[in-house]
Each structure stands twice: as C-alpha cells, then as structure tokens.
C-alpha cells in the first residue's frame, strides 16, 4: 500500500513537473504555445506570429527582390507557412524556419520572372528620401548576402543585433560580425560613390 502511494506521488510529481517545464518553456519561447494553438485550429493566433515576424520576412525579402514586390511576397510567404506549419518540427524555431522559406521564395521569384520591367524614372517615387533609400538599398544588395540581410534588418527594419540573432537563429557573435563588417563595406562604398 505504501509502495502504491509512493508510486502515485511520484507519478503526480512527474506530471506536475512536466506541466511546469512546459509552462516555463512556453514562457521562455512564446512561439511554441502560439504555434500549438494555431495547429489546434485557432487561426487568430497566427496573426500574433505575423505581427512578430513580418518585419523579419520583409527585411529578408527586401534584400533580394524589388521593393514593389516585397509586400505581396510577405503575404504569400505567411500563407505558405500556415499551410506547412505542421511540418515544423521545433516549434521554437519558427523564425529561422520562415526565414528559410522567405529566402527560397525570393529565389523562386527571380527564377520565375525572366521578363522583368526596368523601373524608369517616371515610375520611381517622387520622394527624394525614398529615392536615396532605394539607391543605398541597391548598394547594400551588392554586398555579400550575409552582410546584406543583416544590414537591411538593422537599418531598414530597425531591429537590434540581439533581435536579429533571436529571430534568424544566428548566434549573436555572427550577427555582430556581419553587422560590423557589412557596415564597414557600406561606408567604403558610400564614401566612394556619394557619401552622406
């Protein structure tokens, strides 16, 4: 009888500790809880993920495709991710996962659009700041991909280094190096070409 009670206590403690571990994990990584809810059929929760990760996806896409296409592509990527969400093994890795989808979709975009229309001066924005930003963006795009993406996320989307590291799944050290080396290259290029 005593043994039975002890076993029951152990089982109870085990289940309680598992629940506590899960709660702690959810607190540490809220994505997992949200993804579980989405997979259970709560589609409104997907809006939370969208609001958190849309800037990341936009930045990744903007580093590769024309600005006019970026917004639609972001929507497409999130819809695609929703359909494939059940294939995500690690629920805490939503950011890196959707980042990979965004990179692949951007590559697909270039593969499909053989006939691209060059943006003429008439189609360009009349806003001088935006024009300047487009020019700098072109220079950033000419940098190596690792620097380009990190710089766009930092300068265009306004994310900090730790945020970039957390959402892309890169180590903070890698992001820091990419930021500084990329910035150095960008300064050189801007200094040669126009300067700020």
């Amino acid at each position, binding site marked *: 009888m005593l043994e039975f009670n002890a076993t029951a206590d152990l089982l109870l403690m085990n289940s309680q500790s598992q629940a506590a571990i899960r709660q702690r994990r959810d607190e540490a990584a809220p994505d997992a809880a949200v993804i579980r809810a989405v997979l259970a059929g709560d*589609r409104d929760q*997907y*809006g939370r993920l*969208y*609001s958190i990760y*849309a*800037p990341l996806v*936009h*930045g990744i896409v*903007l580093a590769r495709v024309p*600005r006019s296409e970026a*917004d639609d592509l*972001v*929507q497409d990527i*999130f*819809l695609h991710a*929703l*359909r*494939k*969400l*059940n*294939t995500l093994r690690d629920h805490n890795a939503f950011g890196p996962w959707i980042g990979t989808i965004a990179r692949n979709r951007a590559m697909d975009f270039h593969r499909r659009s053989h006939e691209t229309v060059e943006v003429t001066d008439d189609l360009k924005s009349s*806003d001088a*700041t*935006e024009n*300047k*930003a*487009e020019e*700098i*963006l072109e220079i950033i795009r000419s940098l190596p991909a690792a620097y380009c993406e990190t710089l766009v996320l*930092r*300068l*265009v*989307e*306004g994310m*900090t*280094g*730790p945020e970039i590291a957390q959402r892309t799944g890169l180590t903070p*050290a890698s992001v*820091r*190096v990419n*930021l*500084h*080396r990329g*910035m150095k290259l960008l*300064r050189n290029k801007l200094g040669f070409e126009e300067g*700020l």
Partner: protein
Amino acid sequence: MKNELKNVAADYLWDQTGEPDPELKELERVMGSLGYQPRPLALPASCENQAARNFRPLLAIAATIVLAVGAAALWLEFKRESAQVAKTDAKTAASVDSDRAAATIPDDVLGDAPGAGASDVRDDRDDRDGLTGLIHDNHPKPGRLIAARRNRSSQAGRVEATQREPAAGLTAPLLAASELRAAEAGKAQLMQALRVASAKFNVALRKAQGANNRNLIHNQHKIG
C-alpha cells in the same frame, strides 16, 4: 575580430545603446522609409493544412488496399475450406468403397472374427461413431486390409456389392441444404465485396495517377 568585438561592447550599431554615430543615425532615417508597413494578413477561408488535405487520397488508397487484402484472405480461407471438404468427401467415398468390398468377402476368409461378417464389423463401427459413416478411423482393421487386397483383384465383386447395397456415406450430403444455401450466399457476398473493393482500388489508383499527370497536354493532334 577581437578588437571589433571589444569596440562594440556597448555600441549603437549592435543594440542601439551608447553614443549614436551621426552617419549611422542618418542612414537609419533614410533607410527607415523602406521599412515594413504593418498590413493585416488576409487569410483565405479555404486556407487549411496542406498535409492534412493531401493525406485523404492516401488514406482512401490505404483503406481500399486493406479492404482488398481482407477480402482476398477471406476468399482464400473459404476456398481452402472447400478444398478440405472435397478432400474429406473423396476420402469418405474411398472408405465406403472399401467397406462395400469387404462386405463381399466370405466369413471364412476373416478368421479373426468368427461368426461375425464384414457387415457386422461395419455396423459396430457405425454405432461407435454415431455419425452415419461420415467419419472413419484412420487405422484400417485387418479384415478391411484383406478386403482391400481382395478387392483390387476382383473388380466385379465390388461393382456387384455397390449395386446391391447403395452406400449410405455417398448418398448422405456433407452439408445440410440450409447450410449449403448459406455457404453459397456467403460466397456470392464475398465475390461482390471483392468486386467492389477492386473497383474502389481502381478509382483511387486512377485519382492518384491523375494527380501526378496534371501537366499532361490533352487533345494532341498531328499537324498536317
């Protein structure tokens, strides 16, 4: 690399703390105009889990295969039972033949059973079995062995015995009429189930093949 990391311990580029670099601040201002503008996500009503949607044809195919295999197993079992029944029937017929032949042997040949003929021996056996000759011993009695040997050499006697006294084991049906009817109905049902399963399997197969052949160009005609 180490110098870089030391210098950026608390720099503005890394985590927006510390003294901001004016050039960097200006870059942020200019580039910020291209940043993401929040826009609601338009989820279509039909947007559902793709994997779950694709799982259905596979499930249908699997169910059809299981059904077909089950039906085939049932049919094989039924066939095996029929074969066994036929074999038993043949054995019964053979033993009845030999019994009839034994009945033609005179009593003096069967020295072991004084005063008792072959027919008496058979009657005793029938009484013991209680199954009216359907089930027999696998171990033949000495009298029957002799009878069989004699029977091979004298076909005429066997024919005579058979004509004289119709064999009860041959005329009695192995299954009752109602049981036969039930078996026939079961067989028909089984065959119907097999036909349905086969048709379903074909439909599922065609669907699966059709899904892969979406890009086929139809209605191709020769030019000229």
